[in-house]
């Protein structure tokens, strides 16, 4: 009975989404305020019923209801409770339900936090979100019903993919989806603006906190996924340029461009049509990612079970949503483009360059991801674009991005003096040069790519010093010692958020540079009692014992690590064999630190108790994820800026007038 209730709740959510997509929109054109007022309760209704469906699926997992096909295929009575919870989104159908529930959740959030917005805008934004909701709910009900029953029910479930039985992966998809789906709000605002024909600073100001919030989730989700791959896959890598990873990176890059472009549109009224295009692009890439993962078009380590019917559905859905919005863009954008003028040397120019570079990176990722498909379509044969290509492209483009990123925040809007800017940049430039030079002198010069280390360190120092300079410049006329705190408390949060996020990038660059140039790995064969040395650390292998876990058997290795004579860590890497799926899984064991990780993973058992092992020394690898965390914190700081709250108060006073004006225009 319970699964049927879940199914029923989904159908009700679809019904509400249908009304939400039509009625408020019609109201916004006819000026019918009653119709427009239905948008908020409908968005809430859609959310409540999606949440009920989600809760009922969760209940089916917790009660081991194997009469539900989805539960039987992805759960098992032996599984720990936390994985029964995360198994809800561990495969295609459930993750789609999570998507739809989050989408409805963002809709409900817009409905609650939009009191200051003109009613027609709210009506249109929520109508667009309703349309997107229809697509996902229909997709689920027509091709991927998570509540489908099986008779007779199996006695035991098939277990969740062991790769996914990990705390990191339990929360990685929800964060990622919150990010993906969050861009639907920016998208809906953009479409609503195109429909209304009004793109102004107010529109940009409303979109900004939503965009940044989605971006924070996406940043955290990607970082968590990368961290998970690092410790779970056992190869010590943190990014594989896999199609699914790329699918999350593309919206992130486009979303990052969008955040910066929105800043220009809000402050200077420029880049309007470009900002709208980015808002459409960021969400379109989220949808495209969903398509690539679930259609079977590309192979990937984390591809979901593929089904051509699903692929066809999503492709048609993509055509309607993306094609429709781009057509609307082609039709309405020429009328709204234009805006604030600016000189060549101005912050606008630097932000434009940032946007172009980020767009270029997005295009490169898209191209690399689709290359196998392009090759096949053109009958050029098969190709797999791997690591080297992506790495070369990113190493070629991102230094320019980081370089400009140091100058942008010091530049004035509209027009700047070359001499003034040069004065500001003099000190950061000298320090950076000195730091790079010092790196060259200090480093053990061995590799072919020797210049990458001083380049990476130099760029990080550049970002650090230029942003410190930007803070100094901002506080120039406030000499009191606590100035930065009062500034934070008043209206400086978005500024300091930007600084924090950019310093996160600097940290990220340091991590990547050091780990990829000075990381060491050793594939070795070891006997119990044997010792191996990696980067000056001695790894003593005590042998492997067998252990039983809740739903697996594990071979568990024991290592002691010495720095000189001093024991510094004990590591317990495992190789698990899960009962239900018989899949082997490696669980690496890591001694982590701010400046280095020591990493051991078990390979294959060889004869005489010997094991094939992988030992890694990963200097500064944590900085990669800490950098991402700092970026997310920066975003968080920025959205708490007083300006957005102030705008809310001002907006409320203006609402009545704006309402009438907007209605009259449309």
């Amino acid at each position: 009975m319970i699964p049927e209730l879940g199914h029923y709740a989904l159908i009700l959510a679809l019904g509400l989404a249908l009304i939400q997509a039509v009625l408020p929109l019609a109201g916004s054109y006819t000026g019918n305020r009653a119709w427009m007022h239905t948008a908020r309760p409908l968005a809430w209704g859609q959310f409540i019923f999606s949440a009920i469906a989600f809760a009922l699926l969760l209940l089916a997992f917790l009660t081991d209801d194997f009469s539900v096909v989805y539960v039987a295929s992805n759960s098992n009575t032996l599984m720990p409770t936390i994985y029964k919870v995360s198994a809800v989104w561990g495969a295609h159908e459930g993750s789609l339900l999570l998507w739809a529930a989050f989408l409805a959740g963002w809709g409900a959030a817009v409905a609650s936090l939009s009191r200051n917005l003109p009613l027609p805008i709210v009506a249109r934004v929520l109508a667009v979100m309703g349309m997107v909701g229809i697509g996902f709910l229909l997709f689920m009900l027509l091709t991927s019903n998570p509540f489908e029953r099986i008779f007779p029910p199996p006695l035991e479930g098939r277990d969740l993919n062991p790769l996914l039985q990990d705390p990191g992966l339990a929360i990685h998809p929800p964060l990622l989806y919150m990010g993906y789906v969050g861009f639907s709000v920016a998208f809906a605002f953009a479409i609503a603006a195109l429909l209304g024909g009004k793109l102004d600073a107010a529109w940009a100001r409303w979109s900004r906190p939503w965009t940044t919030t989605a971006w924070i989730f996406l940043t955290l989700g990607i970082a968590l996924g990368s961290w998970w791959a690092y410790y779970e896959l056992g190869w010590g890598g943190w990014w594989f340029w896999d199609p699914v990873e790329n699918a999350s990176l593309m919206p992130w890059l486009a979303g990052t461009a969008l955040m910066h472009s929105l800043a220009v549109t809000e402050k200077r009224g420029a880049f309007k049509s470009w900002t709208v295009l980015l808002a459409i692009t960021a969400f379109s890439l989220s949808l495209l990612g969903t398509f690539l993962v679930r259609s079977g078009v590309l192979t990937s380590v984390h591809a979901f079970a593929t089904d051509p019917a699903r692929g066809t559905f999503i492709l048609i859905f993509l055509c309607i949503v993306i094609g429709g919005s781009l057509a609307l863009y082609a039709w309405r954008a020429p009328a709204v483009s234009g805006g604030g003028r600016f000189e060549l040397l101005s912050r606008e120019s630097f932000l434009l360059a940032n946007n172009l570079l980020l767009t270029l990176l997005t295009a490169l990722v898209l191209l690399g991801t689709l290359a196998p498909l392009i090759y096949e379509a053109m009958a050029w044969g098969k190709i797999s674009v791997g690591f080297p290509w992506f790495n070369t492209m990113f190493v070629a483009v991102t230094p320019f991005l980081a370089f400009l990123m140091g100058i942008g925040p010091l530049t004035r809007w509209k027009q700047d003096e070359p001499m003034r800017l040069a004065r500001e940049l003099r000190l950061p430039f000298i320090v950076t040069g000195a730091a790079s030079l010092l790196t060259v002198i200090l480093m053990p010069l061995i590799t072919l790519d020797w210049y990458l280390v001083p380049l990476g360190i130099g760029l990080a120092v550049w970002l650090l010093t230029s942003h410190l300079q930007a803070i100094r410049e901002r506080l120039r006329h406030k000499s009191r010692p606590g100035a930065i705190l009062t500034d934070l408390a008043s209206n400086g949060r978005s500024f300091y958020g930007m600084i924090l996020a950019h310093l996160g990038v600097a940290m990220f660059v340091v991590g990547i540079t050091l780990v990829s140039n000075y990381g060491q790995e050793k594939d070795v064969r070891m006997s119990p009692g044997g010792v191996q040395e990696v980067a000056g650390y001695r790894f003593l292998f005590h042998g492997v014992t067998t252990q039983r876990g809740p739903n697996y058997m594990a071979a568990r290795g024991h290592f002691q690590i010495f720095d000189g004579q001093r024991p510094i860590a004990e590591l317990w890497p495992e190789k698990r064999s899960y009962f239900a799926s018989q899949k082997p899984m490696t669980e690496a064991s890591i001694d982590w630190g701010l400046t280095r990780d020591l990493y051991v993973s078990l390979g294959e058992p060889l004869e005489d108790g010997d094991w094939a092992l992988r030992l890694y020394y990963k200097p500064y690898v944590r900085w990669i994820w800490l950098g991402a965390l700092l970026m997310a914190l920066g975003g968080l700081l920025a959205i708490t800026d007083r300006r957005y709250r102030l705008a809310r108060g001002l907006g409320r006073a203006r609402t009545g007038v704006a309402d009438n004006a907007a209605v009259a225009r449309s």
Partner: protein
Amino acid sequence: MGKTLKFLIPLALFAGLVALLFFGLGTDPRKVPSPLVGKPAPTFSLPALGDPGRTVSNADLLGQVSLVNVWASWCYSCRAEHAQLMRLARELKEVQILGLNWKDTEADAKQMLRASGDPYRVSAFDPDNRAGIHWGVYGAPETFLVDSEGRICYKKIGPVEPGTWETELAPTIDLTTKKCKESRS
């Protein structure tokens, strides 16, 4: 007019993307009909990995059934399939496994075999894709099943997984006559 056209560019790009994705829906990226299946294996002659004095060539394929596995130490999926190859090397006495070490460096390749075991009777060393290009290698790993007369019975793209031998490779060969089954070629 020119100004309006500019705003149509995104839509046009998207139309191209849709055409591509629509094409992609109809194909299975894991299945590639190799034009080589049923044909004699392309001629090749390469030094053996770790023993430059020795040559690996088509002569090594004659007389018994071979699995020719294209691998590289940098390739993630190759490491994943390594355990399966080790198992096949132990269990399949009537089949020899030959390696084609592809676009790799000798040191890395040897290191990987030392650490994880060596399932290959011998590995041909092909750092510059000399033989790979004639064999139509698109990416590692790939595995060719070759009969005792040096004819290719089957080409597997992607890692060898548990069951790959039993369900995909074995049905294409007659192990008593050591020849490809004609119906498949």
